[in-house]
């Protein structure tokens, strides 16, 4: 058991910190924040992504030929952790989830086209999985892709398609064989968002961000836009999701409300007065312990992946513990800060109103990317071998 980082790791961490200090200005952070509110990826952000890409930090565990550098995933972990700790709201999800899928399953042409553009920020994907009829139950997918000559014609609807308004492409799951059992017969398409027949409608969320409904009406795409083999989309998607789950990004999301609360109680004048209450201190200490568990679960998954193991249940444990911890934190904060916790904006609001925003946002982690219910079932069956009924 080695819970420490090597000198090389620490040097890399220092490099990232220096980079952030030098290159991430308040203006960029504001632009990135506006980006989550529907403004799209701005020029400063694109430039930052480009700089990050130049340094080989995007997909750094990718093969060198695609712009990566075969780096240890610990470096990836450190990179994500530092970005999150500095509260840089840069979504590199595409590099974590879609890019590996393309590397694994893509044609040479797809790799050549997408990977460098992903690194440059010229291509970004919205995730077209979820549909109105089923979030967690992906297998009940209703969007249809019908072969027509050299094309597929796609009809259906997606929902909670975050960044659809600003992405260049949608990473789209559609059913290609309606006769096959539910998990079979699904394919993935890499579709430019400006393809005729795609309509995007905004859904505004509680913290003030934007997500979307995406309507697909006779969307015609060439067969080459399919990723991997026909009807194999489920496995491609699932393995990418699994890859995506081993990394610091999500755990950092889970613990960031706690870290903000802790910092507020440690440093703010009012916060310090509130933190004199031994009961507040007890609650914060309890949350601290739980936050460490969230971190350690991630380190465990990472350790397993590095050893070439496919964690049978450990990533699902991360996905239960972290999101529920995040929710618990925000509820605890509400009773620690009391009336101040309702202040949504303005100077008087602690931390600029971040606490109520985190409060209404925390729930997303408990159903996004697989609900905690589905995760628990997965642990029981895959991890503990409990039987189906």
């Amino acid at each position, binding site marked *: 058991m080695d819970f420490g980082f090597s000198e090389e790791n620490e040097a890399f961490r220092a490099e990232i910190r220096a980079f952030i200090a030098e290159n991430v200005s308040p203006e960029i952070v504001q632009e990135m924040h506006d980006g989550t509110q529907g403004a799209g990826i701005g020029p400063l952000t694109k430039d930052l992504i480009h700089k990050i890409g130049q340094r080989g930090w995007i997909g750094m565990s990718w093969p060198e030929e695609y712009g990566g550098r075969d780096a240890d995933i610990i470096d990836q972990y450190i990179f994500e952790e530092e970005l999150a700790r500095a509260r840089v709201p840069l979504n590199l999800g595409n590099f974590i989830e879609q890019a590996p899928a393309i590397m694994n399953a893509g044609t040479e042409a797809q790799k050549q086209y997408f990977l460098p553009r992903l690194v440059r920020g010229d291509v970004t994907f919205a995730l077209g999985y*979820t549909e109105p*009829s*089923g*979030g*967690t*139950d992906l*297998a*009940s997918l209703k969007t249809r892709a019908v072969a027509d000559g050299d094309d597929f014609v796609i009809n259906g609807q997606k*929902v*909670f398609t975050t960044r659809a308004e600003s992405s260049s492409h949608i990473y789209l799951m559609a059913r290609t064989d309606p006769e096959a059992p539910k998990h079979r017969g699904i394919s993935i398409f890499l579709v430019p968002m400006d393809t005729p027949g795609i309509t995007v409608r905004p*859904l*505004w*969320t*509680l913290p003030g961000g934007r*997500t979307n409904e995406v309507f697909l009406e006779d969307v015609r795409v060439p067969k080459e836009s399919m990723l991997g083999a026909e009807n194999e989309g489920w496995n491609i998607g699932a393995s990418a999701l699994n890859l995506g789950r081993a990394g610091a990004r999500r755990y950092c999301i889970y613990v960031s409300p706690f870290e903000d609360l802790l910092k507020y109680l440690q440093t703010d004048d*009012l916060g310090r*007065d*509130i933190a004199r*209450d031994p*009961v*507040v201190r007890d*609650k914060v200490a309890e949350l601290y312990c739980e936050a460490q568990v969230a971190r350690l679960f991630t380190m465990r998954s990472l350790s397993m992946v590095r050893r070439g193991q496919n964690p049978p249940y450990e990533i699902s444990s991360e996905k239960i513990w972290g999101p529920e911890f995040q*929710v618990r934190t925000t*509820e605890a904060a*509400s*009773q*620690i*800060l*009391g*009336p*101040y*916790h*309702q*202040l*949504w*904006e*303005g100077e*008087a*609001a602690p931390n600029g109103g971040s606490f*109520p925003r985190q*409060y*209404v946002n925390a*729930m*997303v982690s*408990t*159903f*996004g990317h697989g*609900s*905690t*219910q589905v995760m*628990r079932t997965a642990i029981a069956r895959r991890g503990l071998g409990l039987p189906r009924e």
Partner: protein
Amino acid sequence: MDVLLNEDEEMIRDGVRRFFDAECSPDRVRGIEDGGARTDPELWRQLAELGWLGLALPSVYGGGEAPFTQLTVLFEEAGRALAPVPLHPHVVTALALAEAVGRGECGPLAATLVSEACVGDSLLTWAWSERLPGMGPETIELSATADGNGWRLNGHKGMVEAFEIAGHCLVAARTQTGGSANGGLTLLLVAPNAPGVSAVARRTLAGDFQSEVHFDNVYVDGDGLVGRVDEGWDLARPMLQRAMVLNCAMIVGATRRAAERAFDYAKERHAFGHPIGSFQAIQHTCADMITWVDGAELLTREAAWHIAQGSDAGLAAAAAKAFTNERCQAVLREANQIHGGYAQVREYDQQLWYRRAAAWSMRLGTSMEHRRAVAQALEL
């Protein structure tokens, strides 16, 4: 002993619910919030006409003189409907004024305001807490120094509801320092437009506003005195208890509705080929939700009953508030979880209940503070 609603209480519940079902749709609630309005004047007028603003006020002033238990039922329904009107501060303040009038401990202004409060002609509010989240008397620092027949106020109040639209605000001030925390408090009526008063309204999670109010040498004349000088805690203590119980009632009403919406959704929504409400995990979650909100309701109603009996409700109200704050949040959380992504979307209605009930649970004292009061009452 019969902890269920009696006939009168059922009548109130049914009548109020029917009214709000007809008049206070989610769209109307949403409209007030989106417009940034402080209240819904038409709804307020209707509530006044129906006699509900003065439901528990003395009949000599035009009130319904109903017991506090019935008022609690009214507030459960107002919470359930998310009625976008400042019912809580208005009624809490009017009841305190009425109590002072009943004791003969105030001038003619208070009596007039109670009469006006019954018909909605004068909107009342109150200002208590200051810097710290706590609600104890020791947190009151706003100073009132004698000046002729009146007082000069200097200091601030932190979270005042409906301040800008109120006719009068009942302010807790410190007229004496150095004694016990309970002593030296005095309650004074201040007009929000009085010289030296300034306020900043701040948008909350609930979509309404709470104001930070500054008092810069504000003059209050003798008629503004409510209760006895230096002994304001005598009136403030029961006022706070009533405020807490009515706040709990609103939280419980809204949370129950949020839960019912989740139960309905669980029956309709399908996943993996079945209604999600048929899965054991969802069923057991729903069982906990109803159990928790029922528990909060019973604690709240028992505290209301103590108040209606005229007995001290300190322990019961603190227990109700401590439990309701946390358990109703948990119910809301599970209701969100059942709704999945839709719970996050502004244009779906579920969030209207969620945000309000949650924000209300952050007002009038934290769970920790109320548990501290419980421990004290238990002579631990």
